[in-house]
């Protein structure tokens, strides 16, 4: 397991290392600030960050990208609701200072599995959205063909499908092209 602790203080990194004793192979690295090149080279399985670190914004921004990591946050004291909110915002788990070392491992494990699940859900959602957009685009392209070519709905769909097969492209892409070109003919984006 590779763990990166972003914290100017060395105490928490030591706590994490102590809590993970016995895990093989294990590498716990501490860095005072988030350094992108270093993170890329190290490729951590999980990142532990102090809640008061300015680098939270960088990690927050990576949540939706492929560069994201499971993030575990250290807070000084438990404040009501903050953990739930941080988790809703993409932090995978959080740890209140004064944690017993023997709990570190289970928290990191939970963080990693929760992160994997979120990534999967995010992927599914993105695909569902793309499918929906594609369907909407096809509907609009059909409407355009019906209007401009005097086709009925079936005929418009068959024409789109034929165009897609002829070009070897997905029907959604052909529909989008059609709409874009229709826009140009009407003078949009010129």
């Amino acid at each position, binding site marked *: 397991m590779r763990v990166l602790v972003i914290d100017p203080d060395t105490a928490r990194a030591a706590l994490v290392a102590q809590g993970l004793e016995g895990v093989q192979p294990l590498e716990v690295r501490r860095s005072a600030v988030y350094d*992108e090149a270093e993170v890329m080279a190290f490729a951590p399985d999980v990142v532990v960050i102090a809640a008061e670190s300015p680098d939270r914004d960088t990690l*927050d921004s990576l949540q939706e990208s492929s560069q994201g990591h499971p993030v575990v946050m250290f807070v000084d004291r438990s404040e009501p609701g903050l953990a739930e909110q941080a988790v809703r915002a993409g932090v995978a788990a959080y740890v209140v200072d004064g944690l017993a070392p023997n709990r570190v491992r289970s928290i990191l494990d939970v963080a990693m599995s929760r992160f994997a699940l979120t990534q999967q859900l995010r992927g599914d959602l993105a695909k569902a959205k793309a499918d929906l957009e594609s369907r909407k685009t096809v509907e609009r392209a059909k409407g355009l063909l019906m209007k401009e070519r005097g086709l009925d709905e079936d005929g418009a769909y068959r024409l789109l499908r034929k165009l897609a097969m002829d070009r070897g492209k997905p029907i959604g892409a052909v529909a989008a092209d059609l709409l874009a070109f229709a826009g140009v003919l009407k003078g949009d*984006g010129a």
Partner: protein
Amino acid sequence: MSGLSDLRLGFIPLTDCAPLAAAQALGFFEEEGLNVELVREASWATIRDKVAVGLLDGAHMLAPMALSATMSAGAGGEGAILAPMALNQNGSAVTVSIALAEAIRAVDPDALARTPVTAAPLAKVIADRRARGQGPLTFAVVFPYSMHNYLLRYWLAQGGIDPDRDVRLVVIPPPRMVEQMRAGAIDGFCVGAPWNVVAETGGVGRILIAASQFWPGGPDKVLGVTTELATQRPDELRACLRAVMRAAAWADEAENRETLIELLARPDRIGAPPAAIGRALESEIVFHRDAAGLPRREHGLWFLSQMTRWGQIGSEHDLQALVDRVYRPELYREAALSLGPILEPALAFADAAGPAEARLFDGRAFDPQAARAYAAAFDIHRAPV
């Protein structure tokens, strides 16, 4: 027991926290019956989370952050954030490293002398780098949902640079921008005052375009508050707005500038050299004048148009309804009117303030009623067609 109501307000060390810092230092909060604790936070994400759960009653906040937080609020509205006041207009800028500024000058000797500077010569630099097999340039912003992100992206795209494909965009906290540029880790950034001037006076970077050139009177930060403060404690919110308004008006006055700079330069506020803080206050940032404090829904819709343009949001939201929920000019007006003649009277009324003419530097007009069409009409965009 002071008899005062307690409020906790967060801020990030930036020049535009001035209305909050001044209201505290000048005793305006106390005069309004409030005992305010100003809490310096290290990240925008923490500001968002703490306001969302009510650990802070309000905070100095990136305007688009209030919108994005409310978009992801729970079904019962938990986590929604309101913007009853804007804290400032302008103040951000795009800065590039000295090396990159020289590269731009090499392809076009007059590039940096024109006003406003466009990104077209930079596009040429990027094309040349690509032809030589060099990696992409790296630009930094402070948060994905920020004026800085949208300003930089708009400006790059206007010059023919696709911000998602032709450069690498990263997020770096404001106080760390200058050292990252000095270390060569980033080639450019868009950040709020005072960090652009700090880079320039330190010989690290060169400011290419300031927000006041990009969009004169354009929006930046808001005071983001909890729904609970607005609905359960409206008197305290009004008192808070009055204090911050008075401080904003005070901060605009040239005769108060020295005092303000001294106040902001303190290590528990921004902790930057006074000279660097002064420059943006002279000619860039407006806190109160020209109804700068009015949280304009047109501005909210422009932010949503840019979120749409860059694929941060899809077509699932009712943009107008979202803006109406977050941007609360009526709360601002009510507080301003109760304060007496602090606001030019005409500006206190919705129809008298006039629409915010959203003319950006490229002259393209923005119709708030057609935010989605506007987003999809750009040559470079990620909006659904």
